């Protein structure tokens, strides 16, 4: 391809601060950007097996072209393109299109950074850090982002904040977008996000995406509320995945090598773990466009936005990178290249794009669709809401609706592609074949070794093929509606019915979720179903909510959640203890180990007392065979043996209380065997000085107001308590 056309630096001059108000620096550091040319997801498979996602055409132009153009216009001086999967293709593209190596004044220098073992955004940033190329604040963006926003305000905000507070490491661009109540996703097909933002400072306080959407409640940490009397809970914001970061972000990724996902790990990690008090802020985009193409639905939505010029100047007739054809905008949002061969009887509906050297036959209808270059479309073809890429041959009488058809696909006469299909490169569909809705067809077999780990990169093509089992087994995955023919082109050329290629079974997302992120609109029935579900939800919530106060049911729920780490802790203590029983560990080490566990689970000292006591009693129970007498005896032995250990944890009355409460709980729930012996063991605990009389009396006192069911054990040991009380009084009297 020829050299790039000259680009105007729209807004660039304004964005680069004119260092006259800075005394310490003659020139501000260049604004850098890190562009991830790999989304580290599998959502665009099978297409991405053959071509990286950033090079997929969006209304005739590769997505990365939009991103780079925007970065340049936003005043970025230096961009690092991180490529991983298909890195050679990305690099080749950068060179071909003239981005790479261009370092003229007023233009953006683009450097490719290559790595082959990165499997996540976290890895990518670690690689960037190692290269040491980032010197100041930078824009972090993924190569599939379409935007025309001005970065100026957000950058200025970020800089000002940083001056005041060096801990403000990141500014996240968010945009208003209300998710649908029914589907819980935005129009881009992203899942809804709940975030809490301080309305004054715009600090991000809480971030939750769909990944852990299992519970019904948003839980906001108490500390957040005590520190911020006001906070705004948003469900109507969309994350644009454009971040302005300080260099600390890179070192944070390096320090925390388990961070993979930008949001799920990094943002959450910063917010929840409160590492070094680093803060993240948000910048709400009020004018301008920003969207990330994360799935097929957003591909569809963003394409339409581009056609409707929401992304101006990123629209087909303003920036077209192929010099040969100028596409021109006609009425009703129809873009047509000058050399389109269009039959008179063909009809192009509103909001459609037709690329150059494409011919469209008689009585065709093209509605809301994008047709690439060099396509041959026969007669009586109906194309509705679809994306046809380059050099596609569609024979007479085909019907394509709401589907994505890649380069070189051949649809033979009468083929019907139902909504939501994805036909990858060079697939052929035979005569009168119906490709059922939501199928994904590729010449490459579906790699079977992929697990549900969504952090996986696009496996590069070679490994995908070599690792896959023989074809025959793959074919059995095929949808029953069409029988995939042999993948030899020859067979299909003879006219056999079928599809050349493999029909992929839906991957980790599952068939149920298929409708969420496909190009096809959500079916009416589905919506009705969802609506119904919401109504039912309502009804059920009514019932559940009626008798109890919200904070009450809240407490019960949270108790369950809180218990979880504790029971784990208990289990570990028990295991440790059993090892000690076996004679492996001496007592001091045992205490050390238990303390270590306590710290690991960040629990109180008193919790330890309970857990250790539990383990001791458990050991007694194991030692005893069955009858109460032997149980009492073994318990006494065990307590005698481990009393020093227990005493180590019962330094305060509270901890002693904890033991009593634990004992009670055990008798009631886990180890009912002890319940008849409660009154007999209690004096023994007192004798071994594990619990003091203070604790016992306080325990009895506390239980006085409890329910009858709770009082069983107090009653059982009433005599003993009475005796203690009297003893105490006697003591008092003696003192007087």
């Amino acid at each position, binding site marked *: 391809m020829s050299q790039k056309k000259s680009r105007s630096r729209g807004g660039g001059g304004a964005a680069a601060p004119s260092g006259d108000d800075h005394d310490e620096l003659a020139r501000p550091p260049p604004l850098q950007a890190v562009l991830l040319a790999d989304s580290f997801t599998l959502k665009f498979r099978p297409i991405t097996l053959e071509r990286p996602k950033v090079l997929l055409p969006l209304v005739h132009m590769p997505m990365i072209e939009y991103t780079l153009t925007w970065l340049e216009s936003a005043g970025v001086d230096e961009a690092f393109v991180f490529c991983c999967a298909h890195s050679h293709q990305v690099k080749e593209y950068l060179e071909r299109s003239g981005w790479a190596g261009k370092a003229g004044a007023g233009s953006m220098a683009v450097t490719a950074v290559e790595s082959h073992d990165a499997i996540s955004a976290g890895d990518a940033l670690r690689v960037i850090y190692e290269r040491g190329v980032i010197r100041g604040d930078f824009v972090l963006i993924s190569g599939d982002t379409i935007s025309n926003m001005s970065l100026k305000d957000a950058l200025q905000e970020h800089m000002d904040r940083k001056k005041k507070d060096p801990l403000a490491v990141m500014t996240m661009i968010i945009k208003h977008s*209300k998710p649908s*109540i029914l589907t819980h996703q935005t129009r881009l097909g992203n899942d809804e996000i*709940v975030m809490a933002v301080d309305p004054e400072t715009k600090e991000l306080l809480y971030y939750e995406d769909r990944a852990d959407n299992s519970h019904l409640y948003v839980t906001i940490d*108490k500390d957040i509320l005590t520190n911020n009397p*006001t906070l705004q*809970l948003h469900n109507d914001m969309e994350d644009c995945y454009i971040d302005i970061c300080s260099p600390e972000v890179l070192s944070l990724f390096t320090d925390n090598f388990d961070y993979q996902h930008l949001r799920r790990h990094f943002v959450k990690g910063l917010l929840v773990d409160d590492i070094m008090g680093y803060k993240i802020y948000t910048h709400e985009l009020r004018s301008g466009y920003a969207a990330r193409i994360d799935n097929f639905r957003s591909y569809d939505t963003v394409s339409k936005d581009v056609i409707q010029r929401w992304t101006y100047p990123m629209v087909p007739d303003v920036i077209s990178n192929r010099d040969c054809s100028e596409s021109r905008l006609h009425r009703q949002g129809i873009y047509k290249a000058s050399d389109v061969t269009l039959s008179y009887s063909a009809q192009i*509906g509103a909001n459609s794009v037709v690329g150059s050297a494409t011919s469209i036959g008689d009585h065709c209808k093209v509605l809301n669709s994008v047709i690439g270059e060099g396509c041959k479309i026969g007669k009586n073809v109906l194309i509705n809401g679809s994306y046809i890429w380059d050099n596609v041959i569609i024979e007479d009488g085909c019907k394509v609706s709401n589907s994505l058809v890649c380069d070189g696909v051949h649809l033979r006469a009468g083929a019907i592609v139902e909504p939501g299909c994805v036909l990858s490169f060079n697939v052929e569909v035979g005569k009168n074949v119906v490709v059922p809705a939501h199928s994904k067809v590729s010449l490459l077999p579906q790699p079977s070794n992929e697990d549900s780990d969504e952090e996986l990169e696009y496996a590069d093509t070679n490994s995908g093929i070599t690792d896959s089992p023989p074809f025959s087994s793959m074919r059995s995955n095929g949808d029953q509606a069409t029988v995939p023919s042999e993948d030899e082109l020859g067979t299909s050329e003879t006219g056999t019915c079928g599809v050349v290629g493999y029909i992929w079974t839906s991957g980790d997302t599952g068939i149920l979720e298929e409708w969420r992120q496909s190009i096809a609109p959500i079916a009416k029935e589905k919506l009705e179903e969802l609506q119904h579900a919401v109504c039912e939800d309502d009804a059920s*919530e009514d019932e559940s909510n009626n008798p109890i106060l919200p904070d009450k049911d809240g407490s019960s729920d949270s108790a369950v959640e809180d218990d979880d780490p504790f029971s784990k802790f208990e289990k570990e203590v028990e295991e440790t203890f059993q090892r000690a029983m076996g004679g492996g560990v001496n007592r001091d080490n045992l205490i050390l180990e238990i303390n270590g566990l306590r710290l690991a689970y960040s629990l109180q000292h008193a919790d330890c007392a309970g857990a250790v006591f539990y383990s001791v009693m458990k050991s007694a129970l194991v030692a005893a065979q069955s009858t109460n007498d032997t149980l009492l005896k073994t318990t006494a032995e065990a307590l005698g043996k481990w009393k020093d250990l227990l005493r180590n944890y019962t330094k305060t009355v509270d901890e002693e209380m904890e033991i009593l409460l634990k004992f009670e709980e055990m008798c009631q729930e886990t180890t009912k065997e002890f319940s008849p012996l409660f009154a007999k063991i209690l004096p023994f605990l007192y004798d071994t000085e594990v619990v003091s009389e203070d604790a016992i009396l306080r325990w009895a006192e506390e239980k006085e107001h409890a329910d009858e069911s709770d009082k069983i054990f107090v009653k059982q040991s009433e005599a003993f308590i009475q005796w203690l009380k009297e003893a105490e009084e006697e003591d008092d009297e003696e003192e007087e």
Partner: protein
Amino acid sequence: MDFQVVVLAGGTSETLSPLVSKDVPKALLPVANRPLLSYALDLLEASDLKDLIVVVEGQEAARLVGAWVSSAYLDRLRVEVVAVSEDLGSAGALRAISKRLTANDILVISGDLVTDVLPGAVAATHRRNGAAVTALLCSVPVSGPSDTASSSGKDKAKKPNRLNIVGLDKTKQFLLHIISGTDVEKDVRVHKRKIQAVGQMEIRSDLMDAHLYAFKRTILQDVLEQKESYRSIRLEVLPYLVRSQLRSAPSGGNGTTGDETGNSTVLSSGNLQCLSQHRVIAPSAFKQDVLSRSHGGHRCCAYIATKNKYCHRLNSMQSYCDINRDVIGEASHLSGYSFSAQNNIIHPSSVLGSKTTIGPHCILAEGSQLGDKCSVKRSVIGRHCRIGSNVKIVNSVVMNHVVIEDGCHIQGSVVCNNVQLQERAVLKDCQIGAGYIVTAGSEHKAESLARR
């Protein structure tokens, strides 16, 4: 305005003993020499809300309040004083008088509210929004303005251990979530569907419920009738209404809520589908979702008092002292008196000895006498008190007919009617019940003394 006002004047509150007794019900407790209830009643009068039902707990207390009201507000307000039995709780008291409510909207105000927020403004907001309930929310008082450096320091160290969590929509008009008195140690949980329905919710923990509500009568009566166990408006009735308001919101019954939220996929016809939805998203989705629903649902609104408004409830000893101090101090416009150039009020009929100083922020009511070399700072002294020489009164409230003999020191205390303080008695942070005699030379610190 077609508003009926219910003033919940309480009875003889335990927490305020020994200040409150059989003879002095809470409503008549003097605050800056005016009965507490007069603050609420004057406020209502200023808002032209003149149809009142004053609910008092206990027959005897009701009689006393009734007598006072009929003498003080004759020709000014139409007041009906109703006695209800004690320990009903605020909702219970409302239930007891439910039959008397006839107007479309009911304004419920707690008799111990001292504020300059006009109830009329709350009522107007209620009407404008067509709400089922409108609650007045005010900033949580930072207990007592900082008079002395030490006390303010203490306040800061002692953070409130209970939080009121209030959820508002983005226009700050609608009440979406309310939990009173959550433990600070507990995380706050908000039902996701609430946020989903409104898109955006502001969570505030710096607001509190001021016990001033406007209710739609039918809804109030329904709730009181259906939920017989509810005793408190703040803790039960209001949260219930808030909780139930969004119940049928998401589905709405009209079937196409989806397109309001801008999801292209709902629109099935071809052209519409292509419309970029930016414009469709723009209008407040909440308004469409919730406000347009005329059937079944109701709206809960909030009237948020601005920070500079005074809004306190007199429900503890601490708040009694604070409010007294504020009413003669920085919130002096509430007292209804006009202050002198020295920022105090000395009734012309009072008599001061030589070298006696009355500092700013003091009130000295009619017929009181002070001996020589006395010093009074930031205190209220009631009617016909006789105060000897060399007496120091700081930060205190002295009610009517109190005798204070020479050399007494009173600091941070409340001295009720007819108390006698004999010579050189020293009181610090004490409450002295009516008619008590403090013996000569005794010293009391942080005690509550009352006649047995």
